[in-house]
């Protein structure tokens, strides 16, 4: 997960909140529980001290009686942590009574230590027991027979605070474990939630990649309501982009039509003029014609730049071209042999592939004696799709070219043989188109001695 990502933001906020809230909640629960346990323990101690007070002080004797009821069996076990003690406030008032568990030990009096009584008159204190164990202690001051003026006694009951501490720490351990597990679970759920919630973004990414590599024309699929407007906006953008390109093409075509007919008229009008003016006009008209063609091609290529990529299957382009060319060159009887894998695809515009192949095949047909070979080679599908190249060779069995001629021929408008019809623009258009796709166009010698043109183009 990258630092600067939606997933991280969503996950981090959720995780921070969880990590902040869970310990606070844990602390509050722990405190509530501890206070609760303490209150109930104190309640038990208060109950015991009140029972012992009633039992011992209720008699009308001069001396307090040892409590008749045991209340708590651990009062009998030495150093059990459970103790009671009845002490006269002035030594002259009689004997001191203690629980058997206290043995020789005696408990201090909170009253003597100036501990303030609570609203029930009980005084609370924490002390160390005979074994050093922490004790919780409560003291009630009362007089014999509950009558004022009679000798007063301090009645103390103590219980083991560590039992309580043990209970609380046990609870704390279990609470921490449970909350930690809950936290982990929450973090895991958040992770899943973020991944699941952001899944449509991944879908958009794939959809856009499909548009770029040409397997889709619009962003497809059922996207969630929040992203759906984005999807329709993107599709509208793609469509308007396409419309702009199509419009530009139409305008370019219209311009071509508008200019070429007058040029044909001018050229034909001065046909046969012998004054020299005619030759000049024909020459200039030829220059105009080449400029028109050149800048129309440029405009077309510029219109293509930045347009979302398309993929053109090669075979459906080749078949009609071969059909058309065999018909155009029917007189000559040229046989065009095609070797093209069915799955060969060109990463670019159909029209551009048509122009390249059409011009190359037309040239080859003009020069061929009997045969033209079109060979399309697709690289093995193991190589990365983005870097795949399509290799196309058009070779004829005609006279071919010398090295010098090959060097010259790429120049626009350069024609080696003025007797063959054509504007001489064919091959240079092919080269410009190939370069505009980051491809190459090389001339070589074919297996049958004729010209072989190798195109190297991005495969789709």
């Amino acid at each position: 997960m990258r630092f600067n990502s939606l997933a991280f933001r969503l996950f981090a906020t959720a995780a921070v909140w969880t990590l902040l809230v869970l310990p606070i909640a844990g602390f509050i629960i722990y405190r509530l529980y501890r206070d609760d346990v303490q209150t109930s323990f104190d309640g038990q101690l208060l109950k015991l001290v009140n029972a012992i007070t009633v039992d011992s002080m209720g008699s009308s004797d001069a001396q307090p009686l040892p409590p008749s009821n045991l209340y708590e069996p651990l009062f009998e076990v030495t150093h059990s942590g459970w103790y009671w003690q009845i002490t006269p406030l002035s030594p002259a008032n009689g004997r001191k009574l203690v629980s058997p568990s206290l043995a020789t030990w005696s408990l201090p009096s909170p009253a003597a230590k100036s501990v303030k009584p609570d609203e029930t008159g009980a005084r609370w204190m924490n002390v160390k027991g005979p074994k050093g164990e922490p004790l919780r202690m409560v003291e009630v001051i009362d007089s014999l027979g509950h009558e004022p003026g009679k000798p007063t006694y301090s009645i103390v009951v103590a219980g083991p605070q560590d039992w309580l501490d043990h209970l609380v720490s046990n609870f704390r351990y279990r609470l921490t474990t449970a909350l930690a597990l809950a936290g982990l679970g929450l973090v895991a759920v958040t992770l899943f939630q973020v991944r699941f919630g952001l899944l449509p973004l991944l879908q958009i990414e794939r959809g856009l990649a499909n548009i770029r590599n040409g397997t889709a024309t619009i962003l497809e699929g059922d996207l969630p309501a929040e992203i759906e407007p984005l999807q329709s906006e993107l599709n509208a953008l793609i469509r308007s982009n396409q419309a702009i390109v199509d419009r530009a093409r139409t305008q370019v075509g219209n311009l071509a039509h508008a200019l070429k007919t007058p040029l044909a008229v001018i050229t034909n009008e001065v046909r046969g003029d012998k004054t020299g003016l005619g030759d000049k006009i024909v020459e200039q008209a030829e220059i105009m014609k080449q400029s028109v063609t050149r800048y129309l091609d440029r405009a077309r290529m510029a219109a293509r730049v930045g347009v979302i990529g398309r993929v053109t299957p090669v075979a459906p382009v080749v078949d009609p071209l071969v059909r058309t060319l065999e018909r155009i060159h029917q007189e000559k009887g040229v046989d065009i042999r095609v070797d093209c894998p069915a799955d060969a695809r060109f990463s670019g515009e159909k029209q551009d592939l048509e122009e390249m192949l059409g011009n190359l095949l037309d040239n080859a047909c003009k020069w061929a004696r009997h045969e033209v070979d079109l060979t399309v080679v697709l690289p093995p599908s193991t190589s990365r799709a983005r870097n795949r190249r399509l290799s196309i060779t058009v070779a004829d069995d005609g006279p071919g070219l010398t090295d010098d001629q090959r060097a010259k021929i790429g120049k626009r408008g350069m024609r080696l043989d003025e007797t063959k019809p054509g504007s001489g623009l064919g091959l240079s258009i092919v080269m410009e188109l190939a370069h505009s796709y980051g491809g190459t166009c090389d001339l070589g010698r074919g297996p049958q001695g004729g010209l072989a043109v190798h195109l190297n183009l991005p495969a789709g």
Partner: protein
Amino acid sequence: MRVLVVEDDKDLNRQLVSALGDAGYAVDTAFDGEEGYFLGDTEPYDIVILDIGLPKMDGISILEQWRRADRKMPVIILTARDRWSDKVAGMDAGADDYVAKPFHMEELLARVRAQVRRASGHAKSEIECGPLRLDTKTARVTCNGQQIKLTSHEYRLLAYLMHHNGRIVSRTELVEHLYEQDFDRDSNTIEVFIGRLRKKIPVDVIETVRGLGYRLSETPSPG
């Protein structure tokens, strides 16, 4: 040979008519799609030169309708739209050739000649019939190597017969293929021209088939 030129640009239309006329064709013209379609559908042309961008009806639709109606005359498409997709569309619609504007008139004339020859089943640019030889490139006729001087009407008549040698050509067919649409058609003029041709050609190659028409014979009797 009768040609139909369908081209909406008046200047280009005029130039085509003039160049084709000079080359010995009888030329009809149309300036819009509907007129062009109607003429091609009703008149027997030997070849049609058809623009694509036409008012009222575009060239591709015209061509498709002709072919659907089984009109088989050769059609050369003449258009400024010279992308290969346009050429493929034109040829698939039933065109026989494709000439992109601006063009050289000589190239167009060569294509027209080639299509006419091909349509009548001749592979070479020179058509031979016994001692007669017609060079379609130069529009010259020789008999046993001797050039025969012909007027333009005589040439049209002989060239048509030579393109269709070996079969009987009726007077009506000759009238239909030798004269423009608005020409005063009188089949008697055909007989006049046949008579003149017979005088100019040293051997008797033109055979009259009574009631049916004329035929060029491969083995002429000395005339």
